[in-house]
């Protein structure tokens, strides 16, 4: 069987060469192999540092199709279909940022570069909300440059400086100034310095870019709040849930996945989209108070109404 072993070796060398040319990490190759051998699939764990340049969420359903996790040395794109989904898209991006911050890269800060128009339409980051969401506001820098060229310059300079754990670039729609050339340039920059660049495309359509992965993100009904006894509080809005579709990938990929972000644990969980919580009013509405106005106990008007006969 020596011949087949030699053949296999030369085959794997060829594969590695191709992977290098394509710019894929070798681990992706390994993962591609394991797809056909599910028994040998490595069990990934959250915060697994064995592979330094992959962000594993600790969920095999998410990590394995990406070859072990989201690459931390390249461009990944997240796209929302409409601007009114901006909350979910930004939320997912920031949650990824929180996961990346746990890796303690650079100065341990995120840089969020948002187009001015996106900030005007979808709102500016709110410190109290970020703190509730699991992100220390001191760990985020927000830039709203006036022109798209400035945004690209900032993104490139921030990546080159190596000061940030991750750079988030938010664009609205599919601007002409940010096409394949620009994304290629940023992607190469990100790869050369080994830091992630997350592209957040609000209200954009699919477009050829040099991102390693592109997700389409849609909002999904939130999980209900947990009660101390383990049951769910009906009608309450708990942890946010995101509906992810992997649109671009070099590997066989999942079609749809629902992820729930727990700000308290700072971790993603798999959500079950079919077990959506009950709608309507809360099961336990709490103490019932009467309405503050238009109640039955209004003070009677003073005096009494007396009918006078007409004067003339």
């Amino acid at each position, binding site marked *: 069987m020596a011949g087949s072993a030699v053949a296999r070796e030369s085959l794997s060398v060829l594969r590695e060469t191709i992977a290098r040319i394509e710019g894929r990490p070798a681990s992706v190759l390994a993962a591609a192999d394991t797809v056909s051998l599910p028994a040998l699939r490595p069990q990934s764990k959250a915060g697994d540092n064995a592979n330094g340049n992959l962000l594993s969420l600790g969920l095999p359903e998410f990590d394995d199709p990406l070859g072990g996790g989201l690459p931390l040395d390249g461009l990944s794109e997240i796209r929302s279909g409409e601007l*009114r*989904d901006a*909350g*979910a898209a*930004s*939320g*997912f991006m*920031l*949650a990824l940022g929180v996961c990346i911050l746990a890796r303690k890269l*650079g*100065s341990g*800060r995120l840089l969020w570069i948002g187009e001015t128009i996106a*900030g*005007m339409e*979808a*709102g*500016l*980051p*709110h*410190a*109290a*909300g970020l*703190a*509730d*969401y699991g992100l220390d*506001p*001191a760990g*985020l*820098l*927000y*830039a*709203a*440059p006036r022109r798209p060229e*400035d945004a690209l*310059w*900032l993104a490139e*300079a*921030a990546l080159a*400086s*190596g*000061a*940030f754990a991750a750079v988030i670039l938010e664009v609205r729609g599919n601007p002409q100034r940010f096409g394949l050339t620009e994304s290629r340039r940023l992607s190469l920059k990100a790869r050369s310095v080994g830091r992630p660049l997350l592209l957040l495309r609000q209200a954009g359509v699919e477009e050829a870019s040099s991102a390693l992965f592109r997700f389409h993100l*849609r*909002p*999904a*009904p*939130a999980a209900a709040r947990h009660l101390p006894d383990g049951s769910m509080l009906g*009608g*309450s*809005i708990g942890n*946010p849930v995101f*509906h992810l579709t992997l649109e671009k990938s070099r590997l066989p990929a999942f079609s749809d996945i629902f992820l729930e*972000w727990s700000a308290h644990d700072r971790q993603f969980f798999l959500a079950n989209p079919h077990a959506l*919580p009950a*709608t*309507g009013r809360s099961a336990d509405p709490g103490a019932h108070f009467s*309405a*503050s*106005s*238009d109640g039955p106990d209004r003070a009677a008007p003073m005096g009494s109404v007396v009918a006078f006969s007409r004067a003339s």
Partner: protein
Amino acid sequence: MRLTALDEAAEAIGLKPGQGVAEARAICPALDVIAADEVADRQFLEAIADWCDRYTPLVAFDGVDGIFLDITGCAHLFGGEKALLDDVLKRLFHLGLDARGAVSSAPGLSWAAARFGASGVIIADDALGVASPLPVAALRLPEETVLALQKVGLKQVGDLLAAPRAPLARRFGTLVLLRLDQMLGREDEPVSPRRPVADISVERRLAEPVQGEEDLLHLTRQLATTLKSQLEARDQGGRRFELMLFRVDGRVFRIVAGTSMPVRDPVRIGALFCERFAAVHDDLDAGFGFEILRLNVLQAEAYAAVQADFSGAGPVDTSLAAFIDQAVARFGPDCLAQPSLKESHVPERASLLLPAAAARSDEVVPAAPFRAARPIRLLKTPEPVEAMAEVPEGAPMSFRWRRCFHRVRRAEGPERLAAEWWNDGEEAPTRDYFRIEDEAGRRYWLFREGLYEREPRLPRWFMHGVFA
């Protein structure tokens, strides 16, 4: 209309400042009269003062048509006082200006000599001899005092010097004696420079003017290298730098760059100006080139030198500060912001986007009391929505925001936030915030402004933020 200034030809005819234009025209019908423009004159004088910065940092204005240069300790750089004065006058002549100047140990005497005597250098021992023949008008006195002095026959400074001091002061005021003493250097007269003197400044004079941005940057780095040793000697690092570029035709450009922490590394200072050059690109017209470059440290702070250890990597990572400086130099101080918590329960005041350099302060914000969740993105101004809600204080059932209809599936609330009466006044309406989720799973933060029946205006609904 009166004449304010005359050229040599007009003076030769016999016209005088203060004469009426009609009278002057009667004397010389071909007179060319141009309306005075004080603002432009001032700008021109400022430009000349900028140009004079090449000789000394202490340049002061003198009225509308003069400039004082305090050349104490600078003259030797130009080959002595005489050579300096000649250089100033020669260069101004080549710039097309008719200038007169004098160097002496007292500003008053220089002023008098430049305007009423011969230009040149007056050594201190000669002061009396030079001052005596000057007219009393050379004493910078009010016009009526000059007239009064002339009336009694005191026409020259020498006459005043010979007269007894006490009766002079009694009759013409103490200003006469003060000016006299200032002229002779008996009384000190401060000259107030128009700009503060930089803590440290280094400069480079070029034999051949340079135009290229690359050359300028290279020279700036060289200047910064010279600066480094001076900063090290003071245990300081610069926070604000100013690069002065003297163009050959007399124009002066000042480019200021700030940093977020004290810096003395020439490479970082060079990088700062690299960004500034890119930012001011169109305003910086090199023309025929720059002949002098000067780098000033406008603001210096204590610089804590940190020793690197043997493990190689420095203990302090300065990449973030370097990036902030780079971005600020290019786009201005507000380009990088940090969301910061503030002590307020009104959502738009609870979070501010502070400039990254300013947000470094270790301000401790006390933990907020228990409150409901806040959105991750807050709209700059709440946007009105058409909502259908239970009256008086129920959650909305459906609403229309930006022409899109949303049906509410779940709602949490209300969270009632009263206005800050100490800021907004007592009439400001109360808000009831609801966290709602629509059918597609989008989560929003809506509020109703005002309460039914209890507050004067009819309640309205607003969208204020989006949740993840």
